[in-house]
C-alpha cells in the first residue's frame, strides 16, 4: 500500500497527514476486493455514496482522480478521490488544487470521525453499506491512538460481514436509548448500527484481548433490548479506555462498568440501597438471551447472601458475569477474587486505587512474601520487652519463628495467636496477616475458604474467629505501609530502645540476640562488659579505645601516665552512673586499676579541670560532652536491657526449679 503519497493523474505530489494516511489505508482495505491492487468498483461506489455527496460531484471526483481514465481505482486514485471527497464535503470546489490544502477527513455516513462527531447521515444505510462501515464504528479512536482503532478495523473487517445480516432484525429497538444515554461520546449510529456497535463495544470494555473474538461472538447473540437498555454508554468510547484500565483480568469491574451497572440498577430499583427482587432481576437478565441454565448459575454465584434478591453489589456481579459470558468467557465455578462482594463493596468508592489492584493482583503474591518474612525477625528483637505473662508464650513463638522462617502454614498459626496475644501489636498483625491474603490470592478458591482454615487452626487456642476475621478484613484494606516502620510502635516500652538500638547500629542487635558472650562492636563494648563477667581486662582495653579517641587531643597534651589515668577515670565516670551492681563488679575486677585511681580522681579531676581551660578549646569540650552523653545514653539502654534480661533469667530459673522438683517427685517412683 502506498502510503507515502498519492500520485494524482497529473503527477502532482500529494502529501497526506498521518491520520489521513491511516484512514485512507483503512478505507482502502475496506474496498479492496482482490489483491491485485485494484479496488472493487462496487465497494468504492458504495463508499462514495456514503459520503452523501450528490451524484454529479461523485462523478467529478471519479473523473478527476483518474479512475475513469484508468478504468479502475488504484491506490493513488483512491487517495486522491478520498481527498476530493473531503474537499467536497468541506464545501470546496472539486478541483485538484483544493486538495493541496489541509483538509479534514472525508465523512462517510455511519462512520465515526476523529476530528468531528456528528449525528447526521443516519438511517439511510442499507445493510450492504452498513456492513462495510460497521467496523469503523468500533474503530474510532477516542481517547487512544488511532492505530489501535485501525488495527481493530482491519482485524474485524471480515468478521463484521458475516454477521451483518443478523443485525437487520435488530433494527427494531426503542429509539429512546440513543437519546436517553446522552451520547456525549458523540457516536454516529442509526438503529441498526447501534447494536452492532454495542456488541463490539461491550466486548471492548471487558478486555482488550477480546478484540478479535468478541465481534464474532457477540454478533451471534444480538440482544437488542438488553443492550439498548444498557445503551451505548460504555462501548466503543470506553473500549479504548477499557483496554488501558484493565489489568489482564476480565473479572474486574472498571469504573465505567460500575457506573453502568449502577445506572441499570437504578432503572430497576430507584433506591440504591434496596434490593432487586428475584423476579424483576430474572426478567431483566432474561433479556440478555443467555440460556436459562447459565443465568441460573450466574444467579447462584452472585446471590451470595442467598436471599433471592440482589443488592447493588450482587447486581454488579451478576451483570458483569453476564457480560463476560456474552463475550465468550466460560462461567467460573466460584466467584473470582475480584468479584467478591467484599472486594466490590470496599471498591464502591469510585476511586480504585492502584494499591488495591496491586494488593489483589496475583502477580504481587511474591512481593507479599518479603514483608512478612522480615516481619518475623522483629519479635526476636522485642524478645526482652514483652510482658512477663506473655513472655514464655512469646518465647515459644519466637522459637517457632527461628525454626520455621518460611511462609508456611505455621505463619498462619502464629499470626492469629499473636494477634490475640498482645493487643498492642495490632499494627504488626495487620502486616502479618498479609500472608493469609497472599495465600488466598495463591489459592484458586477465594478467602472464604481460608477463613474456616484459619479458624480451625486457631480453635485449639480458644480464640474467637472474629479476631482472625477482623484481621483478615484488615488486610483487604489498601496495603499498609511497609512493615518496618511499624515495629517502632508495636510496643510502648520498646520505643526508645528501638530507636537507641538503631542509633547504636546493628551490632547491638546481634549482641543482644547472642547474649552476653560475643563481643559486639566497639561502641557498645564499653557498656556490655557490665554483663560479662570475664575478660574485663580486655574489655578494659576496649573501653579505653573509644575514650582514647574522645580524648585524643586532650591526651596529647598530657603525659602518658596521666593519660592512662584519665582514660580510666573517664571510663569510671560513666560507669559510676549505672546501677551499683555492675559498677561494683567493675570495681571488683578492676580493683587494681580503680584503686589506684581512687586517690586520683579528686586530685586528678581538679588537675584536669584546671588544665583544660587553658588548653582545651570549647570544641573539644563539646566533643567530650557529647561523647559522655552518648555513653550515658547507651548506658541507660543497656542497664534497662540488663534488668529485663535479669528478670527473664529469674523466670527461667524458676522454671528450672519447678522442673527439677518434678523430677524429684518422679525419681523415687522410678527407683521403686
Amino acid at each position: 500500500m502506498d502510503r507515502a503519497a498519492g500520485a494524482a493523474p497529473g503527477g502532482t505530489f500529494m502529501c497526506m497527514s498521518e491520520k489521513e494516511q491511516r484512514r485512507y489505508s483503512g478505507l482502502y482495505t475496506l474496498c479492496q476486493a482482490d489483491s491485485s491492487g485494484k479496488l472493487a468498483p462496487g465497494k468504492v461506489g458504495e463508499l462514495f455514496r456514503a459520503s452523501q455527496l450528490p451524484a454529479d460531484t461523485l462523478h467529478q471526483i471519479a473523473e478527476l482522480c483518474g479512475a475513469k481514465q484508468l478504468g479502475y481505482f488504484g491506490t493513488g486514485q483512491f487517495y486522491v478521490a478520498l481527498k476530493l471527497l473531503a474537499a467536497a464535503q468541506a464545501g470546496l470546489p472539486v478541483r485538484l488544487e483544493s486538495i493541496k490544502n489541509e483538509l479534514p477527513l472525508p465523512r462517510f455516513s455511519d462512520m465515526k470521525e476523529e476530528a468531528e462527531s456528528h449525528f447526521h447521515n443516519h438511517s439511510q444505510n442499507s445493510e450492504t453499506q452498513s456492513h462495510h462501515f460497521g467496523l469503523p464504528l468500533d474503530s474510532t479512536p477516542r481517547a487512544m491512538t488511532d492505530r489501535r482503532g485501525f488495527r481493530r478495523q482491519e482485524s474485524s473487517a471480515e468478521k463484521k460481514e458475516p454477521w451483518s445480516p443478523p443485525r437487520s432484525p435488530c433494527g427494531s429497538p426503542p429509539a429512546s436509548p440513543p437519546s436517553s444515554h446522552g451520547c456525549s461520546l458523540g457516536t454516529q449510529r442509526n438503529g441498526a448500527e447501534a447494536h452492532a456497535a454495542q456488541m463490539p463495544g461491550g466486548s471492548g470494555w471487558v478486555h482488550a484481548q477480546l478484540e478479535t473474538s468478541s465481534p464474532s461472538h457477540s454478533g451471534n447473540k444480538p440482544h437488542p433490548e438488553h443492550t439498548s437498555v444498557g445503551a451505548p454508554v460504555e462501548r466503543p468510547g470506553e473500549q479504548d479506555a477499557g483496554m488501558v484500565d484493565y489489568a489482564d483480568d476480565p473479572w474486574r469491574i472498571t469504573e465505567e462498568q460500575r457506573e453502568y451497572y449502577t445506572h441499570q440498577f437504578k432503572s430497576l430499583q430507584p433506591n440504591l440501597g434496596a434490593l432487586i427482587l428475584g423476579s424483576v432481576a430474572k426478567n431483566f437478565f432474561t433479556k440478555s438471551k443467555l440460556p436459562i441454565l447459565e443465568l441460573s448459575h450466574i444467579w447462584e454465584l452472585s446471590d451470595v447472601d442467598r436471599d433471592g434478591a440482589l443488592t447493588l453489589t450482587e447486581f454488579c456481579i451478576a451483570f458483569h458475569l453476564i457480560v463476560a459470558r456474552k463475550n465468550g468467557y466460560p462461567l467460573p465455578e466460584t466467584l473470582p477474587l475480584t468479584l467478591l462482594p467484599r472486594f466490590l463493596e470496599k471498591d464502591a468508592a469510585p476511586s480504585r486505587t492502584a494499591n488495591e489492584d496491586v494488593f489483589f493482583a496475583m502477580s504481587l503474591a511474591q512481593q507479599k512474601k518479603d514483608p512478612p518474612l522480615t516481619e518475623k525477625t522483629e519479635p526476636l528483637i522485642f524478645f526482652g520487652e514483652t510482658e512477663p505473662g506473655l513472655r514464655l508464650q512469646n518465647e515459644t513463638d519466637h522459637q517457632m519463628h527461628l525454626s520455621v522462617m518460611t511462609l508456611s502454614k505455621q505463619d498462619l498459626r502464629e499470626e492469629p495467636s499473636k494477634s490475640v496475644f498482645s493487643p498492642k501489636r495490632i499494627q504488626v498483625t495487620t502486616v502479618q496477616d498479609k500472608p493469609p491474603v497472599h495465600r488466598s490470592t495463591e489459592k484458586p478458591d477465594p478467602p472464604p475458604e481460608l477463613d474456616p482454615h484459619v479458624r480451625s487452626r486457631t480453635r485449639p487456642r480458644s480464640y474467637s474467629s472474629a479476631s482472625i476475621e477482623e484481621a483478615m478484613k484488615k488486610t483487604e484494606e489498601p496495603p499498609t505501609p511497609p512493615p518496618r516502620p511499624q515495629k517502632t510502635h508495636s510496643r510502648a516500652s520498646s520505643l526508645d530502645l528501638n530507636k537507641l538500638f538503631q542509633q547504636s547500629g546493628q551490632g547491638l542487635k546481634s549482641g543482644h540476640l547472642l547474649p552476653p558472650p560475643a563481643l559486639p562492636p566497639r561502641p557498645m563494648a564499653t557498656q556490655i562488659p557490665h554483663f560479662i563477667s570475664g575478660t574485663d581486662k580486655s574489655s578494659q582495653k576496649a573501653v579505653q579505645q573509644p575514650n582514647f579517641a574522645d580524648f585524643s587531643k586532650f591526651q596529647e597534651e598530657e603525659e602518658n601516665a596521666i593519660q592512662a589515668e584519665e582514660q580510666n577515670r573517664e571510663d569510671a565516670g560513666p560507669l559510676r552512673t549505672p546501677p551499683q551492681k555492675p559498677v561494683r563488679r567493675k570495681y571488683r575486677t578492676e580493683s587494681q586499676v580503680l584503686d589506684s585511681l581512687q586517690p586520683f580522681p579528686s586530685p586528678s579531676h581538679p588537675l584536669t579541670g584546671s588544665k583544660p581551660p587553658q588548653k582545651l578549646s570549647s570544641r573539644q569540650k563539646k566533643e567530650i560532652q557529647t561523647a559522655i552523653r552518648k555513653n550515658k545514653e547507651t548506658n541507660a539502654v543497656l542497664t534497662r536491657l540488663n534488668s529485663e534480661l535479669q528478670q527473664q533469667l529469674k523466670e527461667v530459673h524458676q522454671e528450672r526449679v519447678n522442673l527439677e522438683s518434678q523430677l524429684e517427685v518422679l525419681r523415687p517412683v522410678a527407683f521403686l
Partner: protein
Amino acid sequence: MMTMLGGEPFLLVSKQEQQNYPLYIRSVPSDSELKFHYTVHTSLDVVEEKVSAVGKVIVDQRELYLGLLYPTEDYKVYGYVTNSKVKFVIVVDSSNTSLRDNEIRSMFRKLHNSFTDVMCNPFYNPGDPIQSKVFDSMVSSMMVQTC
C-alpha cells in the same frame, strides 16, 4: 421427592406434591442404580403414610425428618419432607453402620438448605429437574463424606 442412596451408593431424588416425580436423582456407584430407583419409589408409600399419620398443624424440624422408613435387606431408607411437601429420601447401605441418626439429620438439613437456595433462584422453575451446580457439588461432598 429427592432420594439419596448412601453408604456405598447415594442417590438423591426429589419429588413434589401429588405428582411425585423425581426432581433430582443421584447415586454414587453407577451400578444397581435402577434398584435404588425402585427402592425410592416404593419408599414413597411409606413416606406418604407417615406424612398423613402426622396430621398435626405445627410442623417442626423433627417432624420434617421422618427417620428410618424401613430397613430392608441390605439397606436402610430415611425420609424427610419439607414444608412444601417436597420429599427427600436417602437410601443407605446397611453395612455402613457408622452413620448415625444425627448424621442423617444433618445431611437432610444440608439438603434442605441447598434446596431452598435452588428455589430462591428466580431462574429456577419449581418442578424442573434441578440442574444447579452448587447443589450438585454439595451432594457430591456429602456422599463422599459418608463413603
